């Protein structure tokens, strides 16, 4: 070992890099959030070729590259495709831990929406359960205008039907759409 290294203490420089970012949402994404903000309506966008209804909406179909502009209203209720209960806290989480994330396929949409789940009994969480959007009181035009999704209370008689929703297989539907929920 070189002599100069003897007894040398490592120096560590701490820096916090702070930058404000301002992202333009563009017309399509803006419309999606404006509808939620002003009407509490969730919109999807349909591909004229694949017939897939995308939620969240975007202006190009990634699968066939068609421009998208056919808006469709989708339900504020849907089926939980998957979920997780997050136990570790991070500086970027919007709520204290433990918090629940899920991917929800809203009725009328062919893709899932990733969001928060709340007001749910951990033990009763399951893939396939019905959930509904809870909107924020003071909405500002972003994804947290939907506060979270919560389980839909259902009576025993209804359960069978609603936990196993029929998945419409659309003609010419793209990958993912044909699969079972």
């Amino acid at each position, binding site marked *: 070992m070189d002599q100069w290294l003897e007894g040398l203490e490592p120096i560590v420089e701490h820096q916090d*890099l702070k*930058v*404000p970012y301002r992202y333009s949402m563009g017309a399509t994404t803006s419309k999606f959030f404006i509808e939620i903000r002003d009407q509490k309506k969730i919109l999807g966008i349909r591909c004229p070729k694949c017939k897939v209804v995308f939620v969240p909406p975007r202006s*190009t179909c990634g699968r066939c*590259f068609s421009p998208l502009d056919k808006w469709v209203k989708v339900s504020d209720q849907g089926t939980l495709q998957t979920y997780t209960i997050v136990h570790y806290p991070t500086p970027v989480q919007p709520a204290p831990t433990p918090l629940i994330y899920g991917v929800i396929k809203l009725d009328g949409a062919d893709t899932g929406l990733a969001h928060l789940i709340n007001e749910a009994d951990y033990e009763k969480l399951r893939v396939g359960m019905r959930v509904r959007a809870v909107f924020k009181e003071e909405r500002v035009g972003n994804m947290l205008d939907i506060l979270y999704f919560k389980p839909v209370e259902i009576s025993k008689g209804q359960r069978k039907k609603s936990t196993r929703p029929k998945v419409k297989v659309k003609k010419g539907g793209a990958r993912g759409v044909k699969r079972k929920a």
Partner: protein
Amino acid sequence: MARRSKRNVAIVATGQTDHRSKRPDVNIVEMINEAVRRCLDDAHMTMEDIDGVVIGNMEHFEGVFFTEMWSVDGAGSFLKHGMKITTGGTTGSSLALAGYYHVASGLFDTVMTIGWEKQSEGETTAGLIFQADPLWERATMSGAIGSFAASASAYMHKYGITEEQAAKVAVKNRKNALNNPHAHLKLDLTVEQVLKSKMLAYPIKMLDMCPTSDGACAMIFASEERAKKICPNPAWVIAGVTRHDQPFGGDLEMVVNLRTLRSATEEAYKIAGIKDPLRDFDVAELYEPCTFAELSWYEAAGFCGPGEGGKLMDSGATYMDGELPVNPSGGVLSTNCIGATAMIRVAEAAIQVMGKGGKRQVPNVNRAMATGFGGSWWSDVMILSKTP
């Protein structure tokens, strides 16, 4: 050390957004999509005809970590080969070179390259400070302007280059931009106006410096067989060379002598058989981040001897009607969406070779060169030709 590729590769199409200081009407993916669609239209191709997509930007400028992933819908890379290559200011030329290598490897027939930046969405100077060494440079660094200013002062001191000579670059390039529908700054200026513009950091004034732009550029590289079917006059890639350098500004002479460009052009000229660049090229698109840089790059690229950049400017040789028009597009001084900027140089050189330059077309372009600049005073060079 580099050689020409085994297989011939050509640029068959380009697409650019209309670059602006701000594009609030589109999000990042939509802006990328705009360039991609224009590029496909230019080639009369559909996304299905593309084998792979190579994309890049300056990650911290927009705080977007995985641009290649987010952009899948807009870039058309769904279930295709995709790659992200980022090298700072040279990102655009690194991507163009990647398009070349992809196709030259024989593994791909058609590859799209996409460079973009939406500078209005972040803080450009802050983003540039991110690229300074955290221990040695960040406290003093003031974005790009400071580094150019500190070494431009040394460049003037060493060779007697004047602020007037530099100002002529701003006048020339922004006037050229009047002919380019995609350019961001299109101005009919006088030398006086440039000299009197606001001092940013001596000797750099507002009009000596490139703008910050929102924009994207896409190109399609194709194999010989495909290129001939797609495009009547493709721009063949004859040489591509990259040179990187030591990490600190203080290690280098910066604007005084861009040795990476000197080394890269020497090798590229050897590959392409260029003896006298001023005569052998019909047009050049140089990545000139500030006015002083264009003068210095003339020297490094061998258009003139060391310290003679100012004189070459005075001679008028690099004007639209000169011996070697430099930056008919308006250059970086007119448009600077960083991740796209170096690709725009290559695209504009290709446009000239393909004869698609419209009002900015230089007559009878057979051979063109384009350069990229960035990183730690790094350079890329590409040479394009009408014949393979």
